[in-house]
């Protein structure tokens, strides 16, 4: 048995193996590549990359920051590259939208120190508002894309992305997907580049000042650089062509789809009967390899997740080369959602007649039969989550308004844990689009509808993109209530710091100070666990003419419990007094707290889950919920 106990993500132990999450492998790649600057804003499925690097930054001599948003993160990384350092920005797919402005011109500027953007896309929309395919953004920006097919490749490719970026003096993108970022695998480590450079700014107006006079030339130089990269990708080891003599079907598989394709082919015993082209660089495509495949088979299947990005290019290559064969792709491979071995096997089966060894129809039948039995288990706010209290208070204030004036308030939500308030029983979300949209959409609605509009977003989101729409509300005197649910962290993505909740002794920026400085006249800070005061503040805010900001401040329940355990402070749960409780279920029907359990009309509180926030005790009409563990049990 090999002794691996000492091995960590920073070990300089080439050849050794470590079990890693995909995102940890990408972080390891950054360490091996000698990256000196990392900037990111958290977002699933990208967060663990920078979590990992922040945790080892000191040890590795790296500068790693959680930026206020992705645009700033991109700019920080670009600045480092301009200064000669290897720099990386990491974000989720929709985060790249926020960074899109500087990114679109990054290709014009070129790279001095290696510059790589990691985009973590989310096929299947596990944690996102859309399923966009960022390879299109890369193409629009002339950014070459490396797309790994495995965790090992994710690490290796990132190291190579930096090598290529410096060789071609150009920005590169590593495109990951949820199923890769959150895959786990043994990974063989490589050597660590320990070179440390001094950041140095060298004036170069022609490349660095993107005004028309200079930028027109930059665009021409970018196109030239890109042509060179296009010529080089055919030789990259991530693009592999395996031609089988006599094969009628050629399969082109890109990124994570390669694994599914490989297994589907084995599944059906077609290893010697089909030709296979593995694509590691969907942009620019290794066109020479594509031509070789196209001219050796009579039919082609392109396997890729989401959009027909490779497929469309392959069709152009075929057209240009005058090769007339049928090219399949999204006609037989699903365009929405993640792929897996099954849909790939079914597509190949349809084209070749080979049968998969599993009777999928039978599996579907059993699945259909079981479906009605499955409990509905949506993700939910944790027991003791202060957002539950804030959203309940918003509901109460809005119900009171409706009783008095007859109109129903419109609730605008945003991206964060509080978005889970959309589900029963809170139903505290009528519209939600994107980061900062909680305020932006609310401000717009307030200009065109008569009903009161209440927008809410979290503290991290406020600093990310909530400030400009708040200023807009002041600028145009929108009659809107803007609620900042301040839990002193970036909760959903794993507790990253932000300007209002720094990790160290950096100055804290308080949202109420920002709001007042921006000209908001109605600014109140309340504790959401004080339900009466919170509802009162919200009612006054809704009645207020002009923009009103209410900040509901209470630390994230998970963090608070962690903090209490660390300090040895007891966590005191609540219990239900069975003498007083008549099983009315008001607590459950209003709050939906996972710690409140109902068995045969008997309501109890699971003391192992209840952190003692006391919200349920405040809504109980019978005063039957009491602090403390009952008789040491319950």
């Amino acid at each position, binding site marked *: 048995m090999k002794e691996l106990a000492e091995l960590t993500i920073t070990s300089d132990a080439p050849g050794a193996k470590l*079990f890693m999450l995909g995102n940890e492998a990408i972080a390891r790649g950054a360490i091996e590549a000698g990256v000196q600057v990392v900037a990111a804003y958290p977002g699933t499925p990208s967060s663990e990359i920078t979590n990992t690097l922040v945790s080892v930054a000191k040890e590795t001599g790296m500068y790693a920051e959680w930026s206020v948003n992705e645009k700033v993160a991109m700019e920080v990384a670009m600045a480092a590259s301009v200064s000669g350092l290897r720099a990386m920005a990491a974000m989720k797919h929709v985060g790249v939208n926020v960074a899109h402005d500087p990114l679109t011109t990054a290709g014009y500027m070129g790279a001095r120190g290696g510059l790589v953007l990691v985009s973590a896309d989310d096929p299947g929309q596990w944690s996102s508002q859309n399923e966009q395919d960022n390879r299109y953004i890369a193409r629009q920006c002339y950014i070459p894309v490396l797309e790994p097919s495995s965790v090992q490749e994710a690490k290796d490719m990132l190291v190579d992305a930096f090598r290529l970026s410096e060789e071609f003096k150009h920005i590169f993108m590593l495109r990951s997907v949820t199923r890769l970022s959150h895959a786990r695998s*043994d990974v063989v480590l490589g050597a660590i580049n320990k070179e440390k450079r001094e950041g140095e700014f060298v004036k170069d107006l022609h490349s660095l000042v993107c005004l028309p006079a200079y930028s027109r030339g930059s665009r021409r130089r970018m196109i030239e650089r890109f042509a060179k990269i296009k010529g080089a990708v055919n030789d990259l080891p991530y693009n592999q062509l395996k031609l089988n003599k006599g094969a009628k079907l050629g399969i082109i598989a890109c990124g994570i789809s390669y694994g*599914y394709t490989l297994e589907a082919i084995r599944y059906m015993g077609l290893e010697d009967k089909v030709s296979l082209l593995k694509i590691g660089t969907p942009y620019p495509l290794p066109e020479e390899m594509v031509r070789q495949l196209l001219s050796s088979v009579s039919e082609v299947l392109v396997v890729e997740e989401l959009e027909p990005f490779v497929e469309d290019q392959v069709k152009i290559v075929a057209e240009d080369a005058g090769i007339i064969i049928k090219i399949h792709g999204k006609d037989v491979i699903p365009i929405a959602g993640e792929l897996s071995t099954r849909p790939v096997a079914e597509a190949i089966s349809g084209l070749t007649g080979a049968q998969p060894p599993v009777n999928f129809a039978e599996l579907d039948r059993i699945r259909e039969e079981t479906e009605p*039995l499955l*409990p509905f288990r949506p*993700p939910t706010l944790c027991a003791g989550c202060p957002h539950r209290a804030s959203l309940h208070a918003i509901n109460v204030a809005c119900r009171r308004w409706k009783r008095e004036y007859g109109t129903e308030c419109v609730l605008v939500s945003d991206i964060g844990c509080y978005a889970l308030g959309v589900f029963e029983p809170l139903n505290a979300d009528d519209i939600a689009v994107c980061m900062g949209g909680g305020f932006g959409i609310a401000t717009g609605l307030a200009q065109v509808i008569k009903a009161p509009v209440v927008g809410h977003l979290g503290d991290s989101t406020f600093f990310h993109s909530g400030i400009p729409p708040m200023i807009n509300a002041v600028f145009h005197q929108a009659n809107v209530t803007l609620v900042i649910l301040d839990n002193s962290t970036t909760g959903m993505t794993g507790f990253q710091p932000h300007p209002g909740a720094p990790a160290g002794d950096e100055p804290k920026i308080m949202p109420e100070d920002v709001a007042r400085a921006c000209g908001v006249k109605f600014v109140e800070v309340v504790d959401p666990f004080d339900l009466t005061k919170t509802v009162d503040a919200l009612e006054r805010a809704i009645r207020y003419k002009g923009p009103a900001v209410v900040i509901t401040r209470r630390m994230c329940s998970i963090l608070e419990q962690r903090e209490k355990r660390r300090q040895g402070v007891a966590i005191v749960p609540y219990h239900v007094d069975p003498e007083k409780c008549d099983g009315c279920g008001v607590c459950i029907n209003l709050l939906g707290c996972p710690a409140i359990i109902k068995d045969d009309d008997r309501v109890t509180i699971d003391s192992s889950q209840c952190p003692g926030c006391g919200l349920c005790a405040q809504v109980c009409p019978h005063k039957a919920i009491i602090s403390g563990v009952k008789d040491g049990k319950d």
Partner: protein
Amino acid sequence: MAKTKELNVIICGVGGQGVVLMSELLGNAAVRDDIEVKGSEVLGMAQRGGSVFSNIRLGSGVYAPLTPEGKCDVLVAVEPSEALRNVHFLAKSSLVVLNSRDVKPFTVFLGKSGYPSLEEILDKLHRVTDRVITLDATQLAQEAGSVQSANVVMLGTLYGTGLMPITVETAKAVLQGRFKGKVGEINIRAFDLGYEEVQKALKGAPVK
């Protein structure tokens, strides 16, 4: 590296039950024993109290991070209804180890969702495979010293099946590396209780 036969393990449960930790312990043990390992799970929003599903695929030649449907060898369900949610991964030869202790979602208490009885769950599973072992892992964890260790009991059951290419010694070494002191002792006891429970079931029952 010796060639190891492909073994697809799926661990399922609900957020907070320690499913992700189980897959980490499993993967680290595999690497220690020089066995190739791939897998994946879903983290982030989907995790908050929702269903959690983790794949661990052991052996040579595995490439994809997802077990193909109908190709799961061992399904470990830390929550019984979650076994049903993954029924399409099972085949006639699959072994299912199921913690009988349910975690009902709040939607059940709201009257917005039903919850199947254990009999209904077992009935549906038996439509695919006869090899289902049921145990009260939460009770065993309590016996070991902490309800929190139900996931480690279930990890022990996985090794108890005798199908794992990883040695029990390595599994325990990884466990001890992760948990020190009293918690470490509780977890080793929890592991052993799970292991023995499945060994007993396999010896006494017609679970082939």
